[in-house]
């Protein structure tokens, strides 16, 4: 067992490029979860790839990298593929943790790191045909991972125009491997309809992991729910004296829980 007294907090790298725009809240989430965090531009990391090896976690945050020109996340995925593929694959094979959120999820799918190999899945334009920002209910998959416990409910925001998970199996009518389901959208109906399933995702899938479970990609943004007053209806859970609720007053866990669990698993 490691000595908690001597060990430094685990290091997480947040990867940034032109058009990344959720890096600051991702840094804040990882810091609140107890990690040391370095935010590094992809050009710097490509020049000094050894800095990745020093880290225990990599986060690819949301945004519109390179304007999503060509296709969502395509340019940054190409840069990673050409300049950082080998160190990233070593990182994952070593069992270190990788999270891709929104644009980061799109990039991990384009790289074929999620769900498992190239060309097996895609994140297509929402069925509504437009960008949508709304809070959604999630339920985690049947297998516990470093990121979440099995079958747990979360409440987090989505904000994207291209988040419809599509799955291209080898045969027809093959369901998505259930132990790679990270999160499904939840609604009053089963399967959930719009807007509970905000984009029309296959099997209401909001996020997936790789087969080993150490790489997570998801469209929703748990890093936008770090304190109780980030809950969009926190006023309905105020304390008797009118003060804002504490974490235990809310009916759902903070999105921060996902980062806390991951960082704790590295300790």
């Amino acid at each position, binding site marked *: 067992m490691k000595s908690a007294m001597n060990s430094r907090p685990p290091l997480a790298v947040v990867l940034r490029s032109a058009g990344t725009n959720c890096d600051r809240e991702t840094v804040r989430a990882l810091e609140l979860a107890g990690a040391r965090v370095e935010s590094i531009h992809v050009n710097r990391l490509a020049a000094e790839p050894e800095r990745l090896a020093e880290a225990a976690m990599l986060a690819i945050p949301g945004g519109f990298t390179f*304007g999503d020109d060509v296709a969502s996340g395509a340019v940054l995925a190409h840069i990673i593929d050409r300049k950082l593929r080998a160190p990233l694959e070593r990182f994952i094979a070593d069992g270190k943790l990788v999270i891709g959120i929104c644009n980061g999820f799109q990039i991990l799918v384009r790289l074929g790191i999620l769900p498992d190999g190239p060309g097996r899945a895609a994140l297509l334009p929402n069925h509504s045909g437009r*960008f949508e920002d709304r809070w959604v209910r999630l339920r985690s998959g049947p297998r516990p991972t470093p990121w979440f416990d099995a079958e747990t409910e979360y409440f987090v925001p989505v904000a994207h125009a291209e988040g419809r998970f599509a799955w291209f199996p080898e045969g027809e009518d093959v369901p998505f491997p259930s132990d790679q389901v990270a999160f499904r959208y939840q609604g009053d109906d089963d399967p959930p309809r719009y807007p509970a399933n905000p984009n029309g995702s296959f099997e209401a899938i909001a996020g997936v992991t790789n087969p080993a479970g150490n790489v997570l990609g998801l469209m929703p943004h748990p*890093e*936008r729910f*770090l*304190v109780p007053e980030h809950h969009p209806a926190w006023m309905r859970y105020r304390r008797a004296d009118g003060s804002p609720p504490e974490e235990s007053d809310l009916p759902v866990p903070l999105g921060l829980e996902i980062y806390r669990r991951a960082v704790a698993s590295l300790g």
Partner: protein
Amino acid sequence: MMSGAFPSRSRPHNHPSALEPYGGAGTGIGGVIRDTLGTGLGARPVLNTDVFCFAPLDISPVQLPPGTLAPSRLLAGVVAGVRDYGNRMGIPTANGAILFHPGYVGNPLVFAGSVGVIRRRHVDKEVLPEDRIVAIGGRTGRDGIHGATFSSRELSEESETVSGGAVQIGNPIEEKKVLDALLRARDEGLYRSVTDCGAGGFSSAVGEMGAQTGAVVHLDRAPLKYPGLTATEIWISEAQERMVLAVPPERLERLFAILEEEEVEGCDLGTFASDGMLRLHHEGELVGELACSFLHDGRPKTTHRATRPVRPSIVLPDESISPFELLPTLLAHGSIASKERVIRQYDHEVQGQLVLRPLAGADLDAPMDGCALDPTGDQSHTAVISCGITPLVGEIDPWQMGAWSVDEALRNAIASGGTLDRVALLDNFAWGDVRNPANLGALIECSRGAAAAALACGAPFVSGKDSLHNTYRSGGVARSIPGTLLISALSVAPGRPRAPGSDLKRVGTALLHVGPAPSGIGGSHAEWIMGGSGGTVPEWQPDLAARLLRFVEARIADGTVLAVHDISDGGLAVAAAEMAFGGDGVGLALDLSALAGEASDATPASLLFGEGPHRFLVEIDRHSVERFSAGAADVPITEIGECIARDQFVIRTNGEEWIRSTVPDLKRVWCGAFAAVWPEES
């Protein structure tokens, strides 16, 4: 501990949006974000706001003047422009309004606002002789030539042909890269001053920064989008996403290293001088030479004539329309109806700092009074942003419009958890041709009303920008827009957020009307819909304004208030319905008999739908009614009803039932107004 300031800017971008709504609205947002980046040594943008004014969506095509776009197309284009620029930059768009009035038919209004956060040590800037003039960001092209001139001229059916090239072309990712690089360079102290390239391009940016020193500029060093630009075009192009820095020579190298890593182009355009002269060079030739003092002080003052506004005569409204019919008509009116279809297209969660969203309540779709955010990310402060805009009353009494708009913005700020102890205002006047003495007179009266209300509440005006040429000429007839004043309020309260929300909380609670009983329907939406105009305007009261706001602020702070909503567009009945929309099945029963007794000449229309300053509707627990009213010296408070179960919505007066409906029925009407522009997905 962070010490900070909260710069905020708002500006109209009307004329480009009339010609090319998507590009005009996008570059409007892009420009105002650069204002924030150019504030002090650069503030970090944390919020965008947007207010639009259009002609009604159902206007018949034959009523559209030649050369104008249909309002539905303008609305869809402007929303898409704001969405794509703000979302890509990663700045939440979370406050605003959309208004509809036939007077905006040839000349829509688009106000874009930006709020930023800056540390005190980054506030002061200076330019010293020998500093290098460094331009960073986008390349210079022919787009946006004479953009400022175009915006100050009246629109006409020829505008698209004549001035199409005046609209700039936006690229939000370029601006995001500039933002990232600029704030890194700021934190390393690599420059002494910064200004954005807005109207006038390099000419105004360099001219402004070099006002005291003078400057030597080599125009041929500016990177161009394509060859062939003349020296004049380079100097005045309003191509987007460019900032100009004053850089000490020894820090150039480090600055360019950061620019390279962030993939931002930079160029050394020249040097700030010491002789107060502005000299422009192009391909070895001196193409311009002027004293900066002439540029800044050489303009002769102009004199304009103004006449005192005349109150229009009264056209009595058709009071045969029953309140039962009028309420759904008001709820479906574009200015009042739910903007959810617009708001959801804006990423209002990005940066993870919002603590009061434009929509909240049990189903996350009920309207709030403003928005609030945690600007430093450490729960030490709550910044509240709200707005007030009341053009209907301005057609009767421009002075009252000034006061009403300030009062509405402040009421919204207080309801959203703000404090009168630390609140600032911004003004944006959008007016018709002010060479017309009647228009100028109305503008003066309006500004006087706004000043009176701001002074009474101790709220300073800290920023603003005006657009005084909103006239459309077609078929030899010039039409001016209704004089429009947008007031934005920005308040910084200590600690975590305090807003109780406008959504009703539970059955059995009491509903209180706080403020003067409504008198008259002049300037209300109901008056307009019933075909009336020029009616009695409820007047803003100098001795009540601040006292009432402080009272409500204190009751929110001590936790007594369960829900609060300002009574504004659509009056009391609409405010009550909006509070019920977020209540999870909580309905309400109001009895306006007491209120009717307080008002002189009360009519059903004035009680239910009259608008005006100083009014809130508040939900509190029944056992705290006495505590609530204690110490309410001279603040009028009237208990008018209670929250009841099962979504029932009932309003009666003196034993007569005026409205009986259900919350879901009313909400359906309120939610449907924009279904034709953005259809619901099945």
